[in-house]
């Protein structure tokens, strides 16, 4: 029955098409094609006639045309070409030609389509007709969009630019690929959802792909430069593994190497302790990223120190990305849109840190309707609210997070813990406004605060404050600019009030003001230029000690403020040499100026810097130059495609860093201080060369990549044994200039789609330091290379997600790494009746290897699109095997006897259940 219908319809439509075709007054064509692709024929026909062709490129890929025609009409040619093939075509009244396989397209409604009369058999036929029309409709949705004015330019190419937005929320879709397949030209949308693509004139099918969005296509007829805004539908099934669909080609086809992108959905699947999706914990699962231990937020990228990562939150620097001694990251995952980590091939627009850039971008609020989300876990609670201020024009997003750990501590019976306090909160506010199609403004604010006090003794608090504003202006289709201004502040206070005579407050502050302008110019299909200028003014109050209470005898002690200006100018060019080769060349010139008011000690030449070698003090007045440094930073990348699915890449970059963190503890501690470069503390310079090989499997769902790198770090800071870093008026006497080098290789296999997905990575990496000063006191381990605190040669990560159905999914995370280096005692001795320890050379031993398995089960509520709130349960077990991984191994003199201990942060399996909701 069904077959019969099809046959009937087929017959009917073929007839219709033919009659239609013949009714055209045809221009006659002559020409010869020999083994030409069908698209070549189409191009020819489109040039010679007013006909416009529409077809699925993939379906005509294999069609090769050999034909010789003289004075034939288009339809005659097509009849000839498609004879005995599965291809069909149809031509409508606009002279649009639709090429399909199996069945041609109906180009107009049957004449009786809307009539209510007719026989039963007619109605039956109409019914079937109708069903055919739905298909026809589908094609028509992808209707041809004409861009520009025909014949307005003589150039062979034109550009299309515009925003890609989420249809539901109006938010920009970041990192969406906008591409055509033949020839392969593609661009990705920027953090504002903006894209600009230069294409040959003519018709194209633009494909738009993005994570979490339904695939979308637009048929365009490009005459000259024009605008095209695209709205994408959200994929409403977040548990369906939509992730990385768009990125899967990027690893092979994109020029950028060493870039890891994590979207919030991937992040939420990774099981974490204490039930909060955590950006930094997710980052730590990536190859090449290490940390010294759990519960430390500082991370080490490819053998660099924790302060060598530029952590940007809506483009403003974050100095302390942690909460609660590092158990949580300072970013509220509910508000985050995108996280990008650049490990190598860092583009010229970034500078100021030598190891990596972690770019965290928050979402914009929903411009169409109100919404909210939140979550409750055993330790924290969070909530976010968003909505339009002016519909489709401006929106806001506000989010907050806090902990009730204080309350938990109070419930404990131990008196030691009862007197302890630990609390944190963070707040975010984002506002975005579209002034008009060419101007957008964004503003965001962020504040985080931590406070803890253990056993009622000393209390610690620290806070990040960030305000940023951004104006984005589109000059033309090919040229836009972003003007950004932001403020980043970080401060901490230590206070002790127990003993009134010694009661004090010790505070530390960093204030950073930044202004920058970034421009992108899509010169033509082959060149995309980016350039810009930025300047940062730093002001540091490196320590203020003040007495508290009237009885306190503490003498106020204020370290001198430090001021500096770091400016940079950059230009970069993305050059698509051919479809096989693309190059990126960037140059950043950074200039640093350290200025007064400040008094600087002068040390005797040739002798080690210590208090005894101070010979003079030089005073600099306000604004007076103390020292300058700077220089070019070269950034180069190249990609060469070996095969369709395989590419190799190479990159080199030099980075300069003018502010360093001083810490002689293993992990980032809340009392670590940042120090600006000055005549004694030279800026860090990092050079990295990396090469990579990337391959996608045929089905593209398996990606394999290998990257290797070699890195040199100059003017790396190390510390004299037992250096005093807090309230030190002459910090230069306690630090040592070192050389660092790091090298390694990262191997990763990633399955990006299917019920089972995830990745496996193995990393070999070494990170070594050499400190050879002029004197013994300035030399460590006799001036030989020794492993840094975070040198972990072997590391294996496995993340697997399995989706049982749309409501249940499970994830496993396994981590193995070599234990980190430590300095162990080699001998003991007795002084004054107590045993003390004699230590080995620095970092000559390692703590036991690290191994951990986490699992989680995610349960979604039902998938009705319309309901009051979507809820989501997450049950996870951190450290499933309960292995007591060593955080540190140490020896202590207790009651006169030396004992060895191993400290583990998580000694058991930690189950957590979290409830999340969204409305």
């Amino acid at each position, binding site marked *: 029955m069904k077959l019969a219908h099809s046959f009937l319809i087929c017959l009917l439509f073929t007839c219709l098409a033919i009659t239609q075709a013949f009714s055209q007054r045809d221009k006659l064509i002559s020409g010869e094609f020999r083994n030409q692709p069908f698209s070549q024929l189409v191009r020819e026909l489109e040039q010679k006639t007013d006909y416009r062709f529409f077809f699925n490129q993939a379906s005509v890929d294999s069609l090769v045309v050999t034909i010789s025609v003289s004075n034939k009409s288009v339809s005659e040619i097509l009849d000839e070409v498609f004879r005995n093939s599965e291809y069909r075509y149809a031509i409508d009244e606009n002279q649009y030609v639709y090429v399909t396989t199996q069945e041609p397209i109906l180009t107009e409604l049957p004449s009786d389509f809307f009539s209510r009369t007719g026989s039963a058999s007619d109605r039956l036929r109409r019914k079937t007709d109708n069903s055919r029309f739905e298909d026809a409709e589908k094609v028509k949705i992808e209707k041809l969009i004409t861009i520009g004015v025909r014949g307005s330019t003589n150039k062979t190419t034109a550009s299309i630019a515009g925003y890609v937005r989420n249809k539901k929320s109006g938010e920009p879709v970041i990192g969406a690929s906008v591409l055509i397949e033949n020839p392969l030209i593609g661009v990705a949308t920027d953090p504002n959802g903006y894209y600009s693509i230069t294409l040959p004139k003519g018709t194209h099918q633009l494909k738009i792909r993005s994570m979490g969005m339904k695939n979308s296509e637009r048929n365009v007829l490009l005459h000259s430069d024009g605008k095209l805004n695209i709205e994408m539908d959200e994929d409403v099934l977040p548990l369906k593994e939509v992730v990385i669909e768009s990125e899967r080609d990027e690893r092979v086809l994109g020029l950028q190497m060493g870039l890891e992108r994590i979207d919030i959905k991937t992040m939420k699947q990774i099981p974490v302790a204490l039930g909060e999706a955590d950006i930094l914990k997710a980052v730590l699962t990536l190859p090449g990223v290490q940390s010294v231990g759990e*519960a*430390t937020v500082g991370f080490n990228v490819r053998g660099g120190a924790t302060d060598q990562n530029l952590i940007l939150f809506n483009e403003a620097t974050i100095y302390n990305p942690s909460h609660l001694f590092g158990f949580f990251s300072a970013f509220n995952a509910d508000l985050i849109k995108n996280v990008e980590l650049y490990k190598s091939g860092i583009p010229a627009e970034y500078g100021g840190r030598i190891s990596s850039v972690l770019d965290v971008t928050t979402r914009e609020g929903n411009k169409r309707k109100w919404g909210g989300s939140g979550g409750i876990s055993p330790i924290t609670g969070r909530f976010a609210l968003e909505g339009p201020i002016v519909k489709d024009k401006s929106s806001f997003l506000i989010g907050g997070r806090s902990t009730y750990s204080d309350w938990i501590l109070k419930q*404990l019976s*131990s008196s030691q*813990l009862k007197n*302890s306090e*630990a609390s944190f909160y963070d707040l975010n506010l984002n506002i975005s406004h579209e002034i008009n199609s060419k101007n957008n403004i964004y503003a965001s604010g962020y504040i985080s605060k931590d406070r803890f006090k*253990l056993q009622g*003794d000393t209390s610690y608090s620290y806070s990040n404050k960030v305000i940023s504003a951004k104006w984005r202006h589109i000059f033309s289709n090919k040229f836009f600019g972003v003007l950004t201004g932001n403020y980043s502040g970080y401060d901490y206070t230590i206070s002790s009030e127990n*003993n009134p*005579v*010694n009661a004090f407050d010790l505070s530390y502050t960093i204030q950073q003001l930044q202004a920058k302008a970034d421009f992108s110019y899509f010169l033509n299909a082959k060149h995309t230029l980016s350039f810009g200028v930025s300047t940062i003014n730093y002001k540091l109050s490196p320590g203020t*000690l003040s007495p508290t209470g009237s009885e306190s*005898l503490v*003498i106020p*002690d204020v370290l001198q403020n430090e001021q500096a200006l770091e400016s940079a100018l950059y230009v970069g060019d993305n050059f698509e040499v051919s479809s096989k080769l693309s190059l990126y060349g960037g140059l950043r010139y950074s200039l640093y100026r350290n200025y007064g008011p400040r008094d600087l000690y002068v040390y005797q030449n040739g002798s080690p810097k210590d208090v005894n070698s101070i010979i003079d003090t030089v005073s600099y007045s306000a604004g007076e130059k103390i020292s300058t440094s700077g220089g070019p930073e070269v950034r180069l990348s190249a990609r060469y495609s070996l095969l369709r699915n395989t590419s190799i890449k190479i990159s080199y970059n030099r980075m300069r860093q003018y502010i360093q963190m001083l810490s*002689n*503890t*293993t*992990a980032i*501690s809340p*009392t670590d201080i940042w120090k600006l470069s000055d005549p004694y503390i030279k800026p860090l310079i990092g050079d990295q060369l990396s090469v990579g090989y990337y391959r996608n499997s045929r089905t593209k769902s398996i990606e394999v990549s290998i990257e290797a790198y070699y890195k040199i770090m100059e003017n790396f800071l190390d510390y004299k*044994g*037992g250096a005093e870093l807090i309230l030190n008026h002459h910090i230069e006497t306690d630090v040592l200039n070192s050389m660092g080098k790091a090298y390694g290789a990262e191997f990763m296999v990633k399955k990006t789609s299917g019920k089972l997905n995830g990745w496996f990575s193995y990393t070999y990496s070494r990170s070594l330091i050499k400190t050879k000063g002029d004197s013994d006191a300035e030399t460590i381990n006799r001036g030989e290379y020794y492993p840094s*605190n975070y040198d972990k040669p072997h590391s294996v990560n496995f993340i697997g997600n399995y989706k049982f159905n749309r409501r249940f999914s499970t994830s496993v995370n396994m981590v193995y790494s070599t234990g980190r280096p430590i*300095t*162990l*005692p*080699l*001998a*003991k*001795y*007795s*002084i*004054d*009746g*107590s045993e*003390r*320890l*004699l*230590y*080995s050379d620095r970092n000559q*031993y390692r703590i036991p290897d690290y191994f951990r398995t986490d699992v989680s089960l995610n349960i979604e509520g039902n998938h009705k699109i319309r309901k009051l709130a979507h809820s989501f349960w997450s049950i996870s077990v951190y450290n499933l095997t309960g292995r*007591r991984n060593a955080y540190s*191994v*140490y*020896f*202590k*003199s207790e009651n006169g006897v*030396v*004992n*060895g*201990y*191993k*400290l*583990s*942060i*998580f*000694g*058991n399996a930690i189950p957590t259940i979290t409830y999340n909701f969204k409305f």
Partner: protein
Amino acid sequence: MKRLAFMFIFLSGCIDPYAPPGLKSSEAILVIDGFIDVTNESTIKLSRSQNLTDNNLPKSETGATVWVEDDNGNNFFLSEGLDGVYSLPAQSFSSIKYRLNVKTSNSKLYVSDFEMVTLSPPIDSITWSLTDDLGVQIHANTHDPETTEGFYRWTFDETWLYRSAFSSVYVYDFESHSVALRADDIYNCWRTAKSNDLLIESTTRLSENRVSQYPIAYIKQDDERLRFKYSILVKQYAISKNAFNYWQQLKKTTEDLGTLFGPLPSQVTGNFKSISNPDEPVIGYFSIGSTTSSRIFIPWQQLIAPPFYNTPYQDCESYSLMMQDVPNFSGPFLLTYGIPNPNGPGIIGYYYGLTSCVDCRLSGGVNVEPDFWE
């Protein structure tokens, strides 16, 4: 910072004993431990470092020549005593700076830097208070209007009275198998211990050179030391800045480790150098100066008694020995007191207990009341 570790216990973190696999043994390094007291007899102890797994006492360095030298070249030679201890009777030290020379029996010479004589101000007071958990916290207070240095170090000797589980009235003579009244007291003992932790403080950040309520020691409520009478003699040293740095380093690298934000351990260098071989390490810090001291007593009457004291006698039991069994009495036991005759005068036997429960001297103390005891 130290207490962060507790946070992790709450978060199910834990601390386990750990013995690293096969640490390389290094050669035994000379350790020079000593302080020259300008007002009293002084001792310098020479020993060698030992492997971590070596549980013997450190090897003493004997046969060395040890002398104190002032900046004018005047020498004061120490005389060798037992176990590598070299001593010097009280002298008049009139110079400002001194250094210590050690020449070992294999003719290697080790010399310290010159150190200034530092005189300790008197201890203002040693105070104690009950903590929230009813333990005892002992504090030191001092001030010094004279010197500007403001670096202090304390050590203490604590002495406490304790009693064995049972008083021994009778003594059994294993040769004659007879019982006599015990002449000596093995029930009351005094035990003395030295401080182990490094106690140092600096007042350089204060507007006055004043130390207020420096925590010297903490004793838990159920500690045996508080059961009868406790006494502490706190000894105060004023030290140089360099000496303070040395002790602070030593403290950081041997006591303050093991926390989340704990410092990285490192080698601590003292003020001795090997003249014979500049690359040879030598351990120790030479200081010279005077000390001051102060003693307090804490009797049980001033404390709040816990339900139980934590003593080595908790498992002690008393057994009965009837008169007819006296000749056959044997084993590691001591008689305590008599079993009274329920029907008349006299005793019908003896109670006895394990020697370790009866003789207090076996628990580390002496049964001679110290001179200072009151």
